[in-house]
């Protein structure tokens, strides 16, 4: 459980367009790392390269190395499917499977692995994951109802529960709170704080207060202009990034003078 992530000279392309250039970053296990930066700066693109989800888009590819506890996930022998079972992801908009019940949503990952399990084991996993996502008390009486009947915040916590159910090493979150109200946002942020005891959490956010609240370390991405690739500008402890950044661009961004 919980692996470190190292990117070495990682470039991401969409067709011939270089979207992200030369990222070098070391993310510690059992920590929360936030990616901040203006829209289009490549932070989501980079996040998606950590579980090879960017490959879903036609023409997208990555060059360079991305190491998960020293193993390169872009090694030719590595199946992206295996990577994704180890690196879970939570998306910007809650996306529980509408055709499944809450319970089946949680167990979806196990169903994929073809794991056969007794009903009591399955019940245990459902309860543990939902408790882990602080959702158990709200849904324990309607586990057989569709997940799409929940509120937005509940749906997002269901998605988090779904990704932690399979006990990944890393959890990626792509602006997980941008579609949620402040109360739900708070619930998710509390949850992120608890998740870092067991997982490496990487979160993309547009909300700098959120980054300051939840992240141990923060990475600032920026883009020189339209059509130029995004770059990692500065990566440091969150307090340093927000209080004493070494780069002028970072300082301008976190103090609201730009972007």
């Amino acid at each position, binding site marked *: 459980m919980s692996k470190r992530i190292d990117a070495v000279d990682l470039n991401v392309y969409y067709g011939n367009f270089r979207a992200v250039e030369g990222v070098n970053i070391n993310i510690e296990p059992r920590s929360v790392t936030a990616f901040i930066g203006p829209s289009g700066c490549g932070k989501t693109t980079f996040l998606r390269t950590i579980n090879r989800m960017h490959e879903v888009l036609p023409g997208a590819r990555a060059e360079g190395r991305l190491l998960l506890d020293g193993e390169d996930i872009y090694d030719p022998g590595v199946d992206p499917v295996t990577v994704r079972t180890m690196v879970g992801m939570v998306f910007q908009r809650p996306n*529980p*499977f509408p055709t*499944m019940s809450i319970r089946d949503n949680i167990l979806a990952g196990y169903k994929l692995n073809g794991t056969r399990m007794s009903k009591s084991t399955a019940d245990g996993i459902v309860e543990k994951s939902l408790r882990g996502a602080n959702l158990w008390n709200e849904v324990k009486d309607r586990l057989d*109802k569709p997940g799409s009947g929940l509120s937005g915040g509940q749906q997002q916590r269901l998605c988090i529960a779904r990704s932690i159910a*399979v006990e990944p090493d890393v959890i990626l979150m792509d602006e997980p709170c941008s579609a949620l109200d402040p109360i739900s946002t708070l619930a998710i942020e509390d949850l992120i704080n608890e998740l870092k005891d067991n997982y490496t959490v990487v979160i993309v956010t547009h909300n700098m207060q959120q980054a300051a609240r939840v992240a141990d370390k923060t990475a600032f991405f920026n883009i020189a202009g339209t059509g130029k690739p995004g770059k990692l500008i500065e990566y440091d402890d969150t307090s340093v990034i927000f209080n004493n950044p070494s780069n002028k661009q970072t300082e301008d961004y976190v103090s609201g003078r730009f972007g």
Partner: protein
Amino acid sequence: MTDTATEPSRRTSLKGSRGGEAGDRVFSGLALTAGIVILLVLAFVAVFLLIESLPALWPEAFSDQDTIESADTFWQYVWPLMAGTLIASIIAILLATPVAVGIALYISHYAPRSIATPVGYVIDLLAAIPSVVFGAWGMTVLAGAMVPIYAWLNEYLGWIPLFGGTPTTTGRTLLTSGVVLAVMILPIITSLCREIFLQTPKLHEEAALALGATRWEMVKMTVFPFARAGIVSSIMLGLGRALGETMAVTLVLSPGIFSWSLIQSGRNATIPSEIALNFPEAFGMRQSELIAAGLMLFIITLAVNMVARWIVSRHKEFSGAN
């Protein structure tokens, strides 16, 4: 003209009219009329069928004869036709559905665009071929090609009643008709399924992939459940066409009495081809018999559609529409 007159006036009260109600009334009137027309047409057809078929359904009360012409009772006459129609259609559905869903899935989720587009066009082209051409093709090409297959089926699977009896030498059997029907309904099911598969929300597909699903598992987990209702509907549309198909079956099948064997010629018949073959020379009681057979087909189609609706609505809660 004052400045205030050119500005759009802000409404301060809920009372009064915004204008545009006339358009709304016209539209709702048109929609209502269209709905009523459809019901009226359906009702007229049903009434016509019922009235014209009464002499055959109940000869003692509605005609001067005691029995119908073709058999002792109407049911004796019509059940082999109904069975033949259903069997041919079921063969067609069983053969066409897996192929159609597979092609649709290939076009929507597997093929590169440079292949998917031409394949899609070819499939749509197949739908544009008139059924009489399919019938001619089935009669001249397919029937002959099927003969050795029937011989093989009879030799090795002859213990199953479906492949028993003396195998045909012409190939003009109910099974050949079913295969021709399958080819005919293939494009319908394929294009509908393709459209529906493409509608699967990207977010759901990505949710499955991000859990570590392979492409096939992603399809099973998100695309099929999402498309479930659509697949059933497309199969029902295909079935509707197969049940009512006249020309292709009439050309291919050499009709006869009912038999469980699907590989004998001069056996079985379907309602549409029975009507097409006999209606021009029929009058009086014979005509009533044929129209009553048509009524049975109408009822079968209605029942099939109701079952389809029921299947679709059983999982409404999980359809993703809420």
